[in-house]
C-alpha cells in the first residue's frame, strides 16, 4: 500500500510539475519537485523502491516531454537507487538530513545532465548564464524536500501507513 501511494503521488506530481508549477514559479525558477519527491521516498524506503520510483518518474518525462529516450530515466534511477542505499544511515526525523541529501542529489543530477547532453552534441558554451538559476533551484529543491519529508509523514499517518520503521 505504501509503495502504491508513493507511485500515485509521483505520477500526480509529474502532471502538476509539467502543467501547473510554471504558472506559480517565482523569479523564473520552477522547482524540481519530482527530484525532491524521489529523494524523500527513497530515504523513507530502500534502494529498490527508490530505483523503481526513479524509473517511473524518469519514464514519464522521457515519454511525455522529450524526444531522446532514457535521459531522465537514467538520472532519476541513479538518484533513487543511490539515495535508497544510504537510507539506514540517515536520521529521518531531522529535516536537515533531507535538505542536505537533496542538495547533493540535485547537484549530481544537474552535473550528469550536463555531461549526457554534452556527449549528445549540445556543447552549452554559455552554461554560466544559467548557473545562478540552477543554484537557486537546487536550494529551493532541498528546502522543498525538507518540508515534504514532514508533510509525507503527516499524509501517510492519515492513511495509517508507517513511513518510519520504528513507528
Amino acid at each position: 500500500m505504501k509503495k502504491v501511494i508513493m507511485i500515485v503521488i509521483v505520477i500526480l506530481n509529474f502532471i502538476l510539475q509539467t502543467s501547473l508549477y510554471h504558472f506559480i514559479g517565482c523569479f523564473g525558477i520552477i522547482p524540481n519537485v519530482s527530484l525532491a519527491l524521489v529523494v524523500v521516498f527513497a530515504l523513507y524506503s530502500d534502494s529498490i523502491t527508490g530505483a523503481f520510483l526513479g524509473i517511473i518518474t524518469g519514464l514519464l518525462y522521457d515519454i511525455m516531454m522529450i524526444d531522446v529516450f532514457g535521459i531522465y530515466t537514467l538520472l532519476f534511477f541513479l538518484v533513487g537507487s543511490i539515495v535508497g542505499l544510504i537510507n539506514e544511515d540517515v536520521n529521518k526525523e531531522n529535516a536537515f538530513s533531507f535538505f542536505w541529501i537533496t542538495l547533493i542529489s540535485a547537484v549530481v543530477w544537474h552535473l550528469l545532465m550536463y555531461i549526457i547532453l554534452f556527449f549528445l552534441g549540445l556543447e552549452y558554451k554559455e552554461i554560466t548564464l544559467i548557473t545562478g538559476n540552477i543554484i537557486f533551484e537546487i536550494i529551493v529543491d532541498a528546502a522543498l524536500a525538507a518540508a515534504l519529508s514532514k508533510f509525507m509523514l503527516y499524509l501517510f499517518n492519515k492513511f495509517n501507513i508507517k513511513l518510519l520503521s520504528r513507528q
Partner: protein
Amino acid sequence: MVIKLKFIRKNIKKVLFTGIIIFLLFLIGITSNERENISGTENIAGVLLSRTQKFVYNIGQTFDNAFISIQSIAKAREENNALRNKISELQQENRTLSDIVYNSQILKAEYKLRMNLEYEYTEAQVVSKLDGNWFDRLVIDKGEKDGIKKNDIVVQASVSDDNIVETGLVGRVVDVGYNWAKIITIIDESSKVSFRVLENNEAGIAEGNIDSTISGYFFNNHSSANEGDKLVTSGLGEIYLQNIYIGSVEKVENTNDAKNFKLYVDPAVDFSKLYKVFVLKAGR
C-alpha cells in the same frame, strides 16, 4: 558457468544496477538520432496523461488569466487609447505600402504569391511544458488523429475571417502520438532555424540558447543587420516553411571571430504565456 551464475546471484543488485545503466545509455544512444515514430507504449501513456495535463493546464491558465486581469484593469483604458492610435497609424501605413506595392510590378507579383501561400492548419492547445534549465519543450493536445505529422510547423497566430494571421514562430513537431504531439521550441538549445532579414535579405542561422533566448549569425561574414530589423524563416534546410516571422533584432555584436556579427533576437512569441497555437500542415 556455475561460478558465473553464483557470482550473479550473490551480486544480483549490483548486476541489475549496472545492467539498467548500460541499457538506458544504449537507449539514449539509439534514440538521440531522430526517430520516425514513437512506440505503442509511449503512445498509450501519452494518450492517458495528456488529457489530465490539459485539464490541469486549463486550471492554471484560468487562474493566471484572472490574476493578470485584476492586475491590468487600471491599465486597460490607457492601453485601449494607445491601441486606437496605433490602429490609425497602421491603417495609414498600410495605405502607403499598398500604394507602393501596386505601383511596382515585381512587388505586386510577390504580394499575390504571398496571398496564395495558405497552409492548412489545426488549432491546438498547449497542455504541458518542460521549461526548466535544460530544455524548452511543449506538448499540445492534437496528434495523428488530427492529421499532425512530424516536422509540421507550430506558430502563434490570431484568427480573422477564417484566415490566420501568423504572429510568430513557436517551433516544430518532433514526435506525434494519437491525440498529442511533442514540440521543440525555437528557444531550445538544440533548435536551429535558417533566417532572412526582411530589410536587406541577408541570410543566416538562428539558434536557441541555454538561457531561453535566440541568437544568430550570418552565412556571409560581411553581412550585418540593424537593431529592430525583422527576421523571417528563409526556408533553407527545408525544415521550416518560408516567411514565418521569428522576431526582431535586439542587439548586433561584433564577435571578432569567423562568424563576425552575432545577432541577439527578441522572439515574436512570449514563450512563458503560450496557450493556443496553430500547427501548419506543410504537407511534406
